[in-house]
C-alpha cells in the first residue's frame, strides 16, 4: 500500500499521460455520439484515505447519475462516469437526438442512453490504454445508479475496492458546450493497487 502514497513525480506524470490518452479517445467518442465539441481537463490523480474521497461536485447530496463498469484482463479496477442529474438528462437528449428540454426525467430509455454513453466512453478509454501499454483490458457491462453523490462515491470504493484504506482515482473532467450552457461530467479510473503498479511497469516506470 505504501507504493500508492509514495508515487514519484515522474510516475504521476506518466499516469496523467496514460489517462490523457484514454480520456482523449473517450472524448472523441463522446463528441461523435452527441455531435458536440467536448473539452477535457488535464487528469488529476487523487490518492486519499477512503473517508476523504474528494467530491467532484459541490454538494454531498447532489443527485448524480453514475455508470460503473468493471475493468478486467491484465489490469483490474473500475471506471466510473458521473454526471449531475440535469446533465444526465441533457446527455440522454443529445444521444437520443431529442430537442433540448423535451425530457424531464431519467426514464427507462434515458437511463439506457446514459448507460450506453458510459459503455462507449469506458470502451474508448480502455481501448486506448490497452493499445498504448500493450495490455489486454476488458470492460464488463455497465451498471447505472442515480443517487446522492457522496453515497455513490464512497459505496463504489467500499463495495468494490480491493483496499479499504487508501483509494486511487484518476479523474478527468469533461466539458460540453451546449446551447450556451456548460455541461460537465467526470470520468474516473479506479485501478486496484496491483494494477497501478502494472500500469507503471507497462510504461517502464515501476
Amino acid at each position: 500500500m505504501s507504493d500508492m502514497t509514495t508515487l514519484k513525480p515522474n510516475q504521476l506524470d506518466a499516469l496523467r499521460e496514460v489517462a490523457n490518452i484514454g480520456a482523449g479517445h473517450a472524448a472523441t467518442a463522446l463528441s461523435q455520439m452527441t455531435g458536440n465539441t467536448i473539452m477535457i481537463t488535464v487528469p488529476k490523480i487523487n490518492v486519499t484515505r477512503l473517508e476523504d474521497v474528494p467530491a467532484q461536485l459541490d454538494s454531498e447530496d447532489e443527485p448524480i447519475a453514475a455508470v460503473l463498469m468493471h475493468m478486467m484482463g491484465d489490469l483490474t479496477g473500475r471506471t466510473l462516469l458521473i454526471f449531475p442529474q440535469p446533465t444526465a438528462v441533457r446527455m440522454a437528449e443529445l444521444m437520443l437526438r431529442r430537442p433540448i428540454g423535451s425530457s424531464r426525467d431519467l426514464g427507462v430509455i434515458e437511463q439506457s442512453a446514459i448507460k450506453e454513453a458510459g459503455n462507449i466512453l469506458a470502451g474508448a478509454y480502455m481501448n486506448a490504454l490497452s493499445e498504448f501499454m500493450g495490455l489486454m483490458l476488458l470492460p464488463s457491462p455497465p451498471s447505472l445508479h442515480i443517487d446522492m453523490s457522496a453515497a455513490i462515491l464512497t459505496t463504489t470504493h467500499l463495495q468494490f475496492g480491493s483496499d479499504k484504506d487508501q483509494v486511487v482515482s484518476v479523474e478527468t473532467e469533461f466539458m460540453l458546450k451546449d446551447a450556451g450552457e456548460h455541461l460537465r461530467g467526470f470520468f474516473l479510473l479506479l485501478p486496484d493497487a496491483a494494477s497501478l503498479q502494472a500500469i507503471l511497469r507497462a510504461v517502464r516506470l515501476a
Partner: protein
Amino acid sequence: MSEIRVKVADFAVAGTGAVIATIGLGSCVAIALYDPLARVGGLAHILLPSVGMSQDRENRAKFAGTAVPLLIEQMRAIGGRVERMRAKIAGGASMFTALLPTSGIQMGERNILATRDALTRAQVPLISEDVGGDHGRSVYFDVTTGNVLVKSLRRGDVTI
C-alpha cells in the same frame, strides 16, 4: 437550533437543541444513540464492520465494533447513562447490484450486522432502523426529541 455535521468515519455527541446530521450514506451505517432522560445524543458514521479490515487502528468512529463503545463513553462524559440509552440506525445499502458478486454478503449488509452485534454487546437496545435497499440516505438526528429523520432521493423521508 444548531446543526452538527458528521463526516464519513467521524462522530459527534451533543445535548438538547442540537441536530446531528450526516449526509450521503450508501453502504455506510449511521448509528444514533440517545439517552431520553438526559437528552444527550451521539451519532457515528461508520465505514466498515471491524478494525480487522483496515490498517487504520486509530479512528474508532470508522468501525461498527469500536464506534458504539466510543459513542457511549463520549455521551457519558456529557451526562448520558448507558442503561438508559436507545439506538436507531440507518444506511447499509447496496449499489450497482448487477456488478456485485452473487455469492457472499455485501458490505452494506455486513455493516448492518456488525452494528447490531456491537449494540447487543454494549446492551443498548435497537429500537428502530431504516436499513438495506439500494438507495442512499441522509440522517438528521434531533437531540431534543430523539427523532431521526432519514431522507433519500428516491424513497422520500421517513422518521425513525
